[in-house]
């Protein structure tokens, strides 16, 4: 029988009246990858944030190797043998790679108050080389490296001191396939060394492939712990959602003719360093997909269509010839946009859910003259938040309190409220659980049937294949291929055009 590494005992955490984690207890063993899954808002990140000292514990205990721990910050967690790699960027600009790796642990390089930068850089470089990241220079400013490389620095930072437990919190969604493989390699290494990985991911095939044991949470409550070898993806979906996930996941129609009516035209659009000479038409009631590697330029297409690109050349026009060259103009002409970078570009974090939903529709929510009607706003926000089933206390709650999936629901509620005819959705299901994903796919299908047109940009090939009428594959800033909806279309056909 495996030896227990971590005991989670009766753990509770509330934010105001929201009970994020309720009396959760389970064990994590030595030498395993232990996945933690659940819908958005199920309490996974809250639990691991308590383990790593980011949040304080309301009640309950973490027993690590028989000893109770209560770290107050990440450094204390590190000292107890627990580290974390987060979903978003976890390195600090303005510091060198070495300073980032040893941040909070500089004491061994400090003598008489003076830091031995050379020794710190030397040791950091040795670690980077040992991990196979020779191309990253320890003495260079971390700002010089791209997102992927900075994630590699985080892997070194979180694991160089051989912690007993490494928490990997939805990190893979932010990584390319190459970056994921690198991370998987180190997850296996940690397991082989007899240590433990707590792995949070919404990608269930990935969870089944990488983990030994899976614990499921739902609405902050512990549901079950199962062996990966004993369950299927459908079993996990049922445990996460609390019922069978019935009905079609993606669209089920094939062979439907898309309308010939062009509603949106892009001609010879270029953005220096991003995309080059892009032309396409979007038809009424069509879902048009854009796929490719993360840096292929596909995300810039969304911005260019919404008038949000800088230095854009070429033309973006509606069917009546109206040129879309700015964001206000796009919104005025019923175009909606959701960004891949949800937290920084789509939601206003420190504003209420209600304000976020009402933001582009304020002109329609006035009482007299330029005065806003609070009652209209409240009604509008409530109606569209309910339509999207946003999990919340009420619409006065701040968006910053919501999970990733619920933030995305708020963004979509905003544009549904605006009744936009053309939707540009960049990575609409990024970091979102299976149930919300299905809701979003069904919403897109409904909109398509209502005659609304959608541009869907995604790094998830299966959802492009499952949802789109046509798919453009981007490579090096250009359209490299076009594929049409077909039940026989598979990922390989897309990958062949991507690389």
């Amino acid at each position, binding site marked *: 029988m495996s030896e227990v590494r971590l005991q989670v005992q009766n753990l509770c955490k509330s934010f105001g009246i929201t009970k994020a984690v309720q009396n959760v207890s389970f064990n994590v063993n030595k030498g395993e990858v232990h996945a933690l899954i659940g819908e958005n808002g199920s309490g996974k990140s809250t639990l691991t944030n308590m383990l790593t000292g980011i949040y304080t514990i309301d009640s309950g205990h973490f027993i690590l190797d028989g000893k109770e721990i209560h770290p107050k*910050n990440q450094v204390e967690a590190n000292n107890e043998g627990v580290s974390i790699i987060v979903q978003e960027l976890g390195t600090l600009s*303005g*510091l060198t790679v070495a*300073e980032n790796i040893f*941040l909070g642990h500089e004491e061994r390089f400090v003598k008489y108050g003076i*830091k031995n930068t050379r020794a710190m850089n030397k040791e950091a470089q040795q670690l980077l080389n040992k991990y196979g990241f020779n*191309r990253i220079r320890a003495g260079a*400013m971390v700002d*010089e*490296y791209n997102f992927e490389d900075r994630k590699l620095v985080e892997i070194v930072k979180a694991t160089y001191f051989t912690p007993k437990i490494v928490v990997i919190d939805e990190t893979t969604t932010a990584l390319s396939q190459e970056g994921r493989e690198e991370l998987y390699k180190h997850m296996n290494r940690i397991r082989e060394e007899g240590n433990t990985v707590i792995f949070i991911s919404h990608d269930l095939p990935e969870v089944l492939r990488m983990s030994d044991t899976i614990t499921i949470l739902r609405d902050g409550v512990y549901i079950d712990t199962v062996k990966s070898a004993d369950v299927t993806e459908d079993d996990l979906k049922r445990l996460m959602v609390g019922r069978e996930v019935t009905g079609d996941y993606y669209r089920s129609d094939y062979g439907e003719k898309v309308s010939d009516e062009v509603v949106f035209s892009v001609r010879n659009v270029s953005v220096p360093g991003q995309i080059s000479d892009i032309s396409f038409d979007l038809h009424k009631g069509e879902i048009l997909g854009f796929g490719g590697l993360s840096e292929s330029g596909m995300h810039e297409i969304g911005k260019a269509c919404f008038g949000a690109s800088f230095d854009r050349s070429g033309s973006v026009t509606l069917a009546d010839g109206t040129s879309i060259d700015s964001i206000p103009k796009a919104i005025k002409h019923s175009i909606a946009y959701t960004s891949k970078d949800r937290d920084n570009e789509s939601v206003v974090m420190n504003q209420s859910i209600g304000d976020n939903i009402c933001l582009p529709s304020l002109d329609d929510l006035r009482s007299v003259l330029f005065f806003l009607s609070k009652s209209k706003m409240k009604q509008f926000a409530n109606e569209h938040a309910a339509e999207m089933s946003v999990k919340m206390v009420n619409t006065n709650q701040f968006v910053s309190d919501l999970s990733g999936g619920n933030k995305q629901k708020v963004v979509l509620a905003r544009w549904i409220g605006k009744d936009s005819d053309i939707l540009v959705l960049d990575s609409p299901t990024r970091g979102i659980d299976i149930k919300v994903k299905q809701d979003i796919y069904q919403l897109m299908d409904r909109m398509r049937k209502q005659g609304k047109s959608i541009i869907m940009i995604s790094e998830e090939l299966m959802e492009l294949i499952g949802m789109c009428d046509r798919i453009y594959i981007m490579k090096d800033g250009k359209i490299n291929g076009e594929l049409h909806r077909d039940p026989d279309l598979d990922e390989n056909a897309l990958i062949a055009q991507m690389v």
Partner: protein
Amino acid sequence: MGSSESLSAKNKLSGRTAGFLVLFLLVIVSWAVFKIITPSNFGAPKNLLSYFEASLMVSAGAVGFYFVMVMGMFDFSIGANIMLSSIVGTVVASRFGLGYFGLIGGCVLTGAIVGLLNGFFYVKLHIPSMIVTTGLALIYEAIASYIAGGQSATLPADLRAFGSMPGNLILAVIAFLIAYLLLNYTRIGTYTYAIGSDEFVAKNMGINVNKYKVIAFIISGAFFGIEAVLTISYGSSMVAETGMLSMSRNFYPTMGCFLGLAMKKNGIPIPAIIIGEFFLQIIYYGFVALGAPTAVNDVISGLALLIIVTLTTKTRKGDIVK
């Protein structure tokens, strides 16, 4: 992979070189412009030395103030600090007969205490540093006026070695070296940049953010104490001004720090502050040589600040600037 490494190295080298080139170009161009306009009474080697000496005073304070500004905080009590520190230093040196030890000790210690108070009230009251330091500046001015008996404090002639070469240069260079060491070779420097980059992440890394903010204010205050030594030694006396009149002394250290911040990405903030202050003094004395009214000088200095920071700050299109 290897190519990206060499590219990064090349970029870094060119960044530093480009930064120095911009700074030296600013100095040369500004000197040349005034030399052409007013060749007889501006820019001779002897004059340049006096401009440099004037810039040393301000630079000594500005390199310390950089620690506060890089964390995203501000200080409106710079002038009040310099005034109070120099008056206390003079009193300790002359009245208590402690000589140079009293002068330096009195100024630096007073500056550090002022910094401590700024930092303490800032972290405890949870209100913007700009407001805290403005309020405290009024108090520092009042204390300085009380100590100086409502008039001025005069440094005895035998204690003015730091008012001219080589004393001023030695003290300023020591200040620059300490600032450079603190910034690059101590935990304080690393944490200063970490807090300036992302306070929340820094806190999660176990950094006691409030403690290091207070330390930044103390460092800044102590360096203004050094500026106070140089200032009173150069000018021999300090008038105890009240009613926020001391704020006029805020301008040059702040301008120098802006240049330091702009050149942070080039990896040369401390040299940028030192060379930047020299450039600003050239502009100042250039206008003095032209006989331009103070108002014109202020307008040009203000515009120069905006132009320099705009030209040296690499903001990408679309970046949000607050």
